[in-house]
């Protein structure tokens, strides 16, 4: 389906990432946003508050993030495409409802403009400290999708992608921005509406009475209904059967949760987006995401100028994590370097996946600013040197 031209601000703009995210939501067909102000995400909702009424959308500033994160789910079940916008501490408050969205299979988008934590931390400065919170923050087992833009253009593009993925898989999608991309201003090209692909909500065509809200079929993803269409359906955050009725036993729970997990895991290959440069013959591959990918890009340029074979794998999708691709790379790559604005969240994931087949080096950073490119460059040098030593040892053996 093509985008509704009413919300599409076609043209070349000089926008910051927060504003670009708002435009992405409008292009994607989002017409309901509930939010609560929190730095550095506030500019997103400010622009939404200004833009939405003129395009038939509704913005409401709720009393807190908890309310925002469930108001959007009410709106989705009322027929809207909806999102909420927050930063780290707010995302913490929303976590119960990330779980609810996973359980109800409410297609919705959570935008997190990451700032430094823990607690109030550094509200006006960047970090990437919410990556594990986004993945595991709610209780129980479930899967989400998380996208990591590294520019205002991508804040626009990936907001649309987030809505499309949410609809496709009926899953909460996290847009993991950070203060740097949120507040950075660059050129943002907004295409014509007819050139924007938008995934429509997939509603059932079955008649009321026959329709079962959680009958998934082979696709693993059930079709939706909305309130008011005569289906008289029930949904619950409790473990439920295909009718949407509570089913309080271990077998039903296994069936319910297994599908929530597998619908993402089994489709990981289709969901995952990566950007790879020079990985084919690389000895060292830098794995990065979000704003850090740009800083890493500069460090890689420096290392290549020294003649090192350095590849770059950028996670556009952080979750699901590209396990298969990394395992394949590990067969010829001697070392991975993973810089991030935290003390090693995605690095743990990398280590888990590589299983010791290659060396893995973190470049941790508490946030507050981005890395010095020099720090990543030095780590690449170290990794290259260290892995050569390891090779010699292997030869000696």
């Amino acid at each position, binding site marked *: 389906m093509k985008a509704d031209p009413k919300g599409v601000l076609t043209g070349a703009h000089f926008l910051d990432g927060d504003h670009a995210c708002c435009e992405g939501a409008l292009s994607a067909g989002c017409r309901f946003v*509930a939010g609560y102000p929190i730095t550095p995400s506030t500019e997103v909702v400010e622009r939404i508050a200004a833009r939405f009424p003129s395009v038939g959308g509704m913005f409401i500033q709720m009393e807190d993030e908890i309310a925002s994160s469930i108001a959007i789910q009410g709106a989705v*079940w*009322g*027929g809207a495409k*909806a999102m909420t916008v927050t930063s780290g501490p707010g995302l913490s408050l929303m976590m119960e409802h990330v779980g*609810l969205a996973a359980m109800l299979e409410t297609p919705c988008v959570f935008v997190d403009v990451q700032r430094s934590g823990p607690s109030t931390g550094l509200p006006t400065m960047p970090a990437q400290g919410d990556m594990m919170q986004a993945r595991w923050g709610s209780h129980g087992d479930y899967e989400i999708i998380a996208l990591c833009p590294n520019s205002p253009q991508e804040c626009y593009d990936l907001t649309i992608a987030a809505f499309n993925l949410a609809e496709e898989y009926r899953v909460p999608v996290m847009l993991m921005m950070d203060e740097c991309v949120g507040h950075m201003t660059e050129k943002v090209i907004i295409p014509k509406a007819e050139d924007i692909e938008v995934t429509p909500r997939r509603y059932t065509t079955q008649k009321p009475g026959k329709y079962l809200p959680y009958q998934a079929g082979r696709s693993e993803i059930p079709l939706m209904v909305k309130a*008011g269409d005569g289906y*008289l359906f*029930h949904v*619950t955050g409790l473990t439920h059967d295909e009718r949407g009725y509570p089913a309080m036993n271990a077998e039903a729970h296994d069936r319910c949760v297994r599908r929530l997990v597998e619908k993402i895991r089994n489709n990981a290959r289709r969901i995952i987006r990566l950007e790879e440069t020079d990985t084919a013959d690389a000895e060292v591959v830098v794995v990065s995401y979000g704003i850090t990918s740009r800083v890493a890009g500069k460090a890689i340029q420096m290392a290549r100028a020294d003649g090192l074979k350095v590849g770059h794998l950028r996670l556009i999708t952080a979750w699901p994590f590209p396990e298969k691709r990394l395992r394949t790379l590990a067969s010829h790559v001697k070392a991975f370097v993973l810089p991030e604005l935290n003390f090693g969240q995605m690095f743990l994931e990398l280590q888990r996946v590589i299983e010791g087949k290659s060396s893995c080096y973190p470049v941790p950073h508490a946030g507050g600013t981005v890395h010095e490119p020099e720090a990543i460059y030095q780590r690449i040098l170290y990794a290259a040197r260290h892995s050569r030593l390891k090779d010699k040892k292997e030869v000696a053996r």
Partner: protein
Amino acid sequence: MSRVNPVNQYLRMDRMPHIWCSGCGLGTTVNCFIRAIENCGYPREQISIVSGIGCTGRVAGYLKLDSFHTTHGRPIPFATGLKLANPKLKVVVISGDGDLFAIGGNHFIHAARRNMDLTVVCVNNFTYGMTGGQLTPTTPIDAISSTSPYGNFEEPFNLPFLAESAGAVYVARWTTYHVKQAARSIREAIQKNGLSFVEIISPCPTLYGRRNKLGDGLAMMKAFKENSAIVNGADTREVGLDFKGKIVCGKFIDREKPSFLDMYHTTMAERFGPFYEPYEGVQ
């Protein structure tokens, strides 16, 4: 059974019997609600029901309407999103005193403040039933609960006063003894524009009643009959509840104020003039 109870068409009979205890007032409240929507003038397809968590939270799951069983304390913000996405819907929140006024208290006062177009029915049984009878914000002074074993010493909320102060346009209280009046009030509340609030005092014989030696459900219902006084238009400051004291019932507030959506239309129509397309939801 050849003759079928007319309320069955509004119930998910495939889920009966329900989980509520013998003598619990929740089923009676559901009966009142069904009688209210039968006569409210809206087709049932346009009525959505949202509940939180707890014994009362299960109401949504038994009603054959579009029904949502959400998270603890959050049915009001869910209902807010549902209503705003599709303003044609009549959205009714039914939840308990703990859900709506402890964990969800902030949402209630803000929904009332902004006069969100919702009906909120609070089934007040003075306790958390599903988790074993703990203290709630409405447990009267001196009442025993599992977390106030020496008697409650915290001042409880006077819900009608709270609702009026926060801005609700319709405020009524009944007990489950007052089935006819309760049904009428819920109907009026649904027909009201803005935030309407109905408190239903209900027996929880298993936990609240037993701990406080109030007898079984029937004894509690008889006590409601004997101890209640109907004072329509009563000053809500005067209707706070004591342990075993008088229960003032009635319709206390019925006033007109522009709702959230009314104010939204007015503001945007003024701001955008002829370019404003009145917001009718997101379809």
